[in-house]
Each structure stands twice: as C-alpha cells, then as structure tokens.
C-alpha cells in the first residue's frame, strides 16, 4: 500500500478521534450550560473562567473514583460492556465526509477516512450493533434494574432502527447512491442550498425522532430512567466505566447530528461556496460549516431534553411501531410518486 | 486486478474446507445440545457456513447469482429466527423450560 496514503489516513483518524473525544467532553459542559439557560440558572461557573475547566475536573473525578465490581457480576462481560459501547460509538465517524478535499504538499487529501460506496449501510450496521454494549453491561451487572434497562434498551433500539432505515430509504431513492459523499455532493445545487430537507421534511422528522430514541436521549431515555430504574443499565457502574457509558451517549449524539447534517442538511455545503476560488480556504470553511450545523443539532437535542417530559414505555412502543413506521412508509410512497411524476 | 488479492494467492479449496468444518461444528452442536435456543443458534451457524461457501464460489467464478442466494438465505434465516423464538417463548411459558427433550409430550 501507498505509504503516504497510510500516513495521511492515520493522521486523519487520530485527529478525528481526538476531536470526537474533546467534543464529547465539552458536550457535558454544554449540556449543563444549556440546561441552566433553559431553567434560568447560571450553571457551572467555578472551575476556570465561565466554568470552562469543569469537564476536566469531572474527568479527573471519574478517573480517581473507587472502582466497584459487584460480587455476583459476570466480571469480564461487566468490563466488556462499556468498552463495546465506546468502540461502536467511535467507529461510526469513519464514513462521514467532513469537507471536500485539501491540497497540501502537492497531495489531494480527502477529508473522509473511508469513502466506501455503502456508507449509509455501514452506519446502519454500526447502529444496530451499538445495542450490545448496553445489553451486555446491563445483563452482566446481575441486578434487576440493570436487566430491565438492558431489555428496554434493546427493544427500543430495534424498534426505532426500522423507522430510521425506512426514512433513509426515501433519501437513497432520490440520490441513487449509498455513499455519503455522493449524497452530500448532490446537495450542492442552488448555490449550496439544495438540501434534502426541502424534499424530505417528513423523512427528517422521522429520522430525528428515531435518532433521539437510538441515542437513548430524553424524552426516550427509558433505559436509564432514574425515577423507575435508578439509572437503568449503568446502575452498578462506577468510576471510568460509568464515564465510558456517559461518554458513548454524547459521542452518539455528535455522530447522529453529523449524519443528519450530511443526509438532510447539505453536509459541508454552504451558501456562496461557489464564489471561493482557493481550494484550501473552501475546505476550511466547509469544515466550519459542517461543525456549525452539527452544533445546532446538538443544541436541539439538549433543548428537547430539557423541554419534553419522558414518555411512558407503552407510549414509546406505540410511537415507534404505530406512528413512525407507517409514516416512514407513507413518506417512501410519496417520494416514489413524486419521482415518477416530476421525473427527478 | 491486485496481485495480492485472495483470488491469486489462495485456492478455493481452502474456503471449501473452512465452510465444511463450520458446517460440521454446527451439526455437532445440533446433535449434542438440549437447549432449544442454542439449537437454533447452531442452525444459524450451519446456514452461515453455507453462505460463506456460496460467496466464495460466486466471487471466484465472477457470477453474482451465488451472492443473491446468500441474500435469500438471510431472509429465510431471519424469518426462521423470528418464528422459532416466538415458539420457544410460548413453550417456555407453558413448561418453564427450553429443553427440547420435554417437547415430545403432546399434552402440556
């Protein structure tokens, strides 16, 4: 294999992992600040200026806490659970295009780790495997609340995966490609504003709802639901293993925002991008654009969490099976009909 | 074509041996286990051995029909798992056991 390509990809993966972890760390801070803003409070403001060092203090606390493994737990699976949750959260970012390409040292550097022609399927695959971290951790704890959390998580994630996949099929029908880069490139018309959201408003709402449920975020956070399950699948976890579960949730939030941006909101396209001549400047601005869009979605996630009350479990299942899936099928039919009529 | 690809460095007979071994391990499981859920898992393993062989033949011959058959086998396997597990859960509700040895009684 080409050595330079290997080096380039390794550097990209390193940077991406560092950024993902850094963002996940600061999302905990963001979450508290947003919560404080929505509840008319100040939020963390002691560690550093505006409390900016708070996540680092939290991480330090997590690392140095005493680590407890319950006597009756399945020890290896108990350790494997958070690790799996973290790995599946981190590897999804491989197929997301962060910008077009940079031109450095006479080389063209693609700002994407793997431009595979089945990018969306890869994401669906990782999402469907992502449930194991929670299931294994919850089962291995040997605690009935954890087990309930694990069972709830698995049935919730299987149910909402269907709606998510069906919503994506409508987009795939329009674009005729499973590659995320291809889908993003197709949204660059109209001066960088021909985003799929214009054609797929219903699909986006379905996808967004399902993404909330897949990330176990409120109002669908029934697997961890403190009032009923005392923390659900991570009841028995402490120190950095707990930290891994919480981290994985924030990384999932970041990645699903990135996927939503790429599929429905034009990815790295931004208005006026055709006016910029320099490729490197364009790529930099594209990265800024995609991160701005992602931040907006993350804010929306937090906004919803601190606004809507939690669903009841039967309501959650009804919403998934009796509302989301039929709506997604209707959306698919509408898309097909529209393509037939207007000859897209 | 890439000279390092498996098609040039590996004879198809190795894939045949691998999937035969997997199939026979699955068969051994089906014959020795008594837990109905594990039995279903062993059957999935046997199906996967067949899938692997289908894909190997299809790729070596450059014919996509084999890969489509794998697709259909997956459909059948998914349907089988759904119905099979539903039946096992039903039986468990009545007998409190998933032992296939107890399933031969006609009267619960």
């Amino acid at each position: 294999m080409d050595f330079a390509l290997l080096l380039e990809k390794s550097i990209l993966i390193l940077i991406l992992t560092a950024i993902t972890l850094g963002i996940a760390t600061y999302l905990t801070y963001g979450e508290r600040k947003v919560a404080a803003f929505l509840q008319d409070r100040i939020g963390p403001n002691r560690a550093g200026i505006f409390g900016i060092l708070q996540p680092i203090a939290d991480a330090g606390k997590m690392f140095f806490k005493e680590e407890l493994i319950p006597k009756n737990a399945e020890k290896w699976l108990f350790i494997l659970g958070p690790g799996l949750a973290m790995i599946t959260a981190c590897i999804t970012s491989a197929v997301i295009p962060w910008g077009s390409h940079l031109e450095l040292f006479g080389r063209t550097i693609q700002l994407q780790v793997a431009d595979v022609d089945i990018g969306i399927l890869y994401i669906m695959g990782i999402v469907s495997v992502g449930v194991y971290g929670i299931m294994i951790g919850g089962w291995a704890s040997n605690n009935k609340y954890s087990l309930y959390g694990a069972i709830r998580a698995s049935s919730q994630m299987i149910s909402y995966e269907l709606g998510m996949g069906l919503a994506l099929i409508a987009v795939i029908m329009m674009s005729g490609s499973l590659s995320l880069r291809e889908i993003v490139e197709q949204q660059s018309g109209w001066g960088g504003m021909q985003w799929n959201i214009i054609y797929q408003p219903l699909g986006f709402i379905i996808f967004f709802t399902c993404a909330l449920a897949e990330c176990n975020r409120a109002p669908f956070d029934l697997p961890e639901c403190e009032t009923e399950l005392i923390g659900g699948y991570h009841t028995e976890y402490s120190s950095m293993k707990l930290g891994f579960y919480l981290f994985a949730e924030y990384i999932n939030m970041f990645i699903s925002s990135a996927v939503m941006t790429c599929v429905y909101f034009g990815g790295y396209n931004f208005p006026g991008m055709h006016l910029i001549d320099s490729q490197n400047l364009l790529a930099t601005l594209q990265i800024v654009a995609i991160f701005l869009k992602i931040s907006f979605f993350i804010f929306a996630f937090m906004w919803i969490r601190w606004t809507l009350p939690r669903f009841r479990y039967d309501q959650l299942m009804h919403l998934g099976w009796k509302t989301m899936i039929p709506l997604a099928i209707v959306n698919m039919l509408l898309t097909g009909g529209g393509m037939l009529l207007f000859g897209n | 074509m890439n000279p390092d690809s498996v098609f040039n460095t590996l004879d198809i007979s190795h894939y045949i041996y691998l999937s035969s071994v997997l199939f026979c391990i699955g068969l051994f499981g089906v014959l020795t286990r008594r837990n109905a859920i594990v039995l279903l898992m062993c059957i999935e393993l046997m199906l996967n051995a067949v899938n692997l062989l289908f894909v190997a033949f299809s790729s070596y011959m450059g014919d996509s029909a084999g890969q489509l058959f794998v697709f259909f086998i997956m459909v059948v396997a998914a349907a089988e798992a759904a119905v099979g597990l539903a039946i096992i859960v039903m039986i468990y509700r009545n007998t409190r056991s998933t032992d296939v040895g107890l399933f031969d009684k006609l009267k619960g």
Partner: protein
Amino acid sequence: MLLTILGLPPAFLLLSFITILCALYVVTNTNPVYSVLALILAFFSISAHYVLLNAQFLAVVNLIVYAGAIMVLFLFVLMLLNLNKESEPIVKMGWHIGAAVTAGLLLVTLAAALHKSSEQIMRNPAEDIGLVKNLGKVLFTDYLVPFELSGILFLAAMVGAVLLGKKQTNSKENNNYSETSSQ
C-alpha cells in the same frame, strides 16, 4: 501439511482461526449468553471473509441482519427468560462421541466431494460483482419473483410471530403461568 497451512495468506489464516474457535465455543459452552456472544464474533469474522472475497455489500448486510437483528433477538429472549447454565441438562458422554463421529464422517464426505468439484470451477474472478449496483440489477431483473416471494415469506413470518407472541386472553387452568411474571 503444516507448511502448506502456514503458506496461506495471513489474513485468511487469522480469520479462519477466529471463526473456527468461536464456532467451537458456541457449541461447547454451557452458558447460552456466552454462546450468543461467541456467535456474534463468528459472524463478524465471516463478514471479514466476505470483504476479503470482494463482497462488501453482503458483508455489511450480514452484520445488519445477523449481528444487528437476529442475535439481538436471541440475546433478548435469553435475558427475558433469564436462562442460566443450570437450565440445561447434561447429555450423556456416549451421545457426544456419537455426534462427534457423525460430524467427522460428514466432514470427510463433504470435503472429499466438494474438493473434487473445486477443480471444475472456472476461475473468472471479477472485482465488481459484489457492488450494490450490480447485485441490485441482477436482483430486480433475473430474481424478481423470488424477491417478491421472500417479501411474502417475511409477512407470513411476521404475522405468525405476532400471533404466537400474543398472550391468550381465555387462560385455561394449566395456562396461568403465562399471566404471571414475564421476567
């Protein structure tokens, strides 16, 4: 013999080793939850084999269908029924030996029969048949009827599973287990 095995591509060797080890673990372990996890790992390595064989689409579909759906269902049922290792009765040793002999004989037969056929295969590897575009074309032209039939099969399976999973409302005397603890 050992030398010929060591001469094979390392990726193939490693993956085959993992696959066979996991498969053995699945059939010999008495705790079904560990069996499920080993089987998931086996499916992952089979997916990696598909990638080696240039069948990327099937590799991902294998992950989504087997690791992502079917095995989650198995794990879910195991957790729901809360089965542990005591739930499985011990099988007699003679039965094990018989099964091993049967499986071994089948292995010899299969390997011999298929090895013969491997010489007749025309080797004509093409790199692009595993791509979605080409598979889709063949699926929706030559194999349209089986595709539609598999849709009907799925519908039937879904209806069957829902019907089986439903609790009977007119519970008979010996059926009152079904109304108590679902956990």
